[in-house]
């Protein structure tokens, strides 16, 4: 069950890179969260035929990758997982919308092709934006930021505990599957007839774990209100970071930067 242990490793890896020190890691989590949400909003708000404008939004991930020291190669590898879903969303566009838009070296480019491409780029950029947030901010800091934004307490607690226990659940599943495969060495994968009981086992273990966890929480004074750690207040650098990116996103979104640059060369 290499995939389960890979998944556990991946969670550990994300935690490790979120804990390193860099100018981006030091930015206040609330500021990073707002900037990320703004980036996603500006990115998806581009017109579905505005490929050139959309491409300028790549500035944000490029800047963050270079300033934070997060591995670009590793992030791209992670993108492989979601890429099929993004492609699936845009793949039918060329078939549904066949209105010609322009000719490129004798090939008719249709509206469907362009809108499919923008969908693909939007998908990649927004996922990269989210990935950069979680790889430069620890989960407790993100939860603290969500708390400041008055996101319902129960939701924030769910996020925090899910993140903490995802590795425990994965290793429980790993143990079950390893125990199975050691006693069924000639089988590839798991026979469908035992899926039910294995999933049932996992469910019962999860319920057991959840009960123990809740007991531990109430014994230490938990009464439904999760009190998060207090992080230092935002510094002037954090405000500057916020203002610079907001201004940059607005410029990239509402001015045709590519046309402006192009006009400098073609007179």
């Amino acid at each position, binding site marked *: 069950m290499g995939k389960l242990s890979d998944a556990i490793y991946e969670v550990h890896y994300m935690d490790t890179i979120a804990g390193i020190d860099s100018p981006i890691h030091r930015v206040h989590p609330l500021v990073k969260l707002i900037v990320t949400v703004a980036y996603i909003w500006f990115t998806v708000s581009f017109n579905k035929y505005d490929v050139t404008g959309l491409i300028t939004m790549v500035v944000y991930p490029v800047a963050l990758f270079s300033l934070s020291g997060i591995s670009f190669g590793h992030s791209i590898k992670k993108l492989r997982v979601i890429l099929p879903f993004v492609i699936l969303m845009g793949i039918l566009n060329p078939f549904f919308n066949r209105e010609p838009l322009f000719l490129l070296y004798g090939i008719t480019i249709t509206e469907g092709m362009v809108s499919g491409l923008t969908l693909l780029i939007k998908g990649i950029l927004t996922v990269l934006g989210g990935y950069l947030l979680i790889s430069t901010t620890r989960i407790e800091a993100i939860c603290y930021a969500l708390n400041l934004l008055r996101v319902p307490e129960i939701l924030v607690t769910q996020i*925090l505990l899910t993140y903490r226990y995802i590795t*425990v659940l994965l290793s429980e599943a790993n143990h079950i599957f390893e125990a199975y495969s050691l006693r069924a060495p000639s089988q590839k994968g798991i026979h469908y007839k035992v899926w039910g009981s294995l999933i049932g086992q996992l469910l019962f273990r999860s319920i057991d*774990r959840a009960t123990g*966890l809740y007991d531990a*929480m109430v014994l230490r004074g938990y009464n439904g209100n999760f009190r998060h750690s207090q992080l230092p207040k935002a510094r002037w650098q954090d405000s500057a970071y916020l203002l610079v990116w907001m201004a940059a996103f607005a410029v990239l979104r509402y001015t045709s930067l590519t046309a402006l640059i192009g006009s400098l060369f073609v007179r």
Partner: protein
Amino acid sequence: MSHHHIICSNVSFSYDKSFEILHEISFTAGHDDAIGLIGANGVGKSTLLRILVGLEMEFTGEVSIGEIKVTKKTLPRVREKIGYVFQDSENQLFMPTVYEDIAFAPRNYGLDSDQVEERVRHALDLIDIDYLKNKQPYKMSGGEKKLAAIATILAMTPDVILMDEPTIALDPRNRRRLINILNNLDHIKIIASHDLDMVLETCNRVILMSEGKIIADGETREILTNRELLEANGLELPFCLQGETGVSYKPSVPHTHIHL
């Protein structure tokens, strides 16, 4: 004012009426007590601990902690006085880092950030695990998790510490470290364990249970050197006493090979 801090009077408990897990359990514990709760598997040791801390409330009889009777209404006050260390530390460490876990209880009790910081620092110092404070639980060994779990309850400054099998799955070095820590903690302790050598080193009193009842309650050495009593209740002499003069150990079942 009573000098007994824990009073357990005629406590019986069952999930199912046909099978009683605890039957008429009565004992008291005072400020100098470090009690080893021993007995074979399934005799109700963990259930008794869970009743003391209010995790099982459907019992009959009376339990008082520090003169507060344990009822649903008094649970928050009772739980402030008791620190319960779970058998599985994974349940106890639910926050992303050890620091956050230790700070969890003080924050819930409404302490300000300076007081929380002080409590966390004090708990880390007591267990001597300052180096673990920013570590994530899943990156820690079983021994480190156990020490961190103890620190989480010390930050509550409890009067009573309850532990369920604290030495389970610990290597000899971590077990020794835990024994030293337990001996340095000036709290009322009730430790449920099968590790009778650890009980011998950390407890001044032992309660032996069998089939949901208290069979013996007395001075540690007196009970743990009584081979007949221990063997009659599914236990053996502590390893360190096997072979000692006066408590010579003879296994009741000779070593044999099993042919399947």
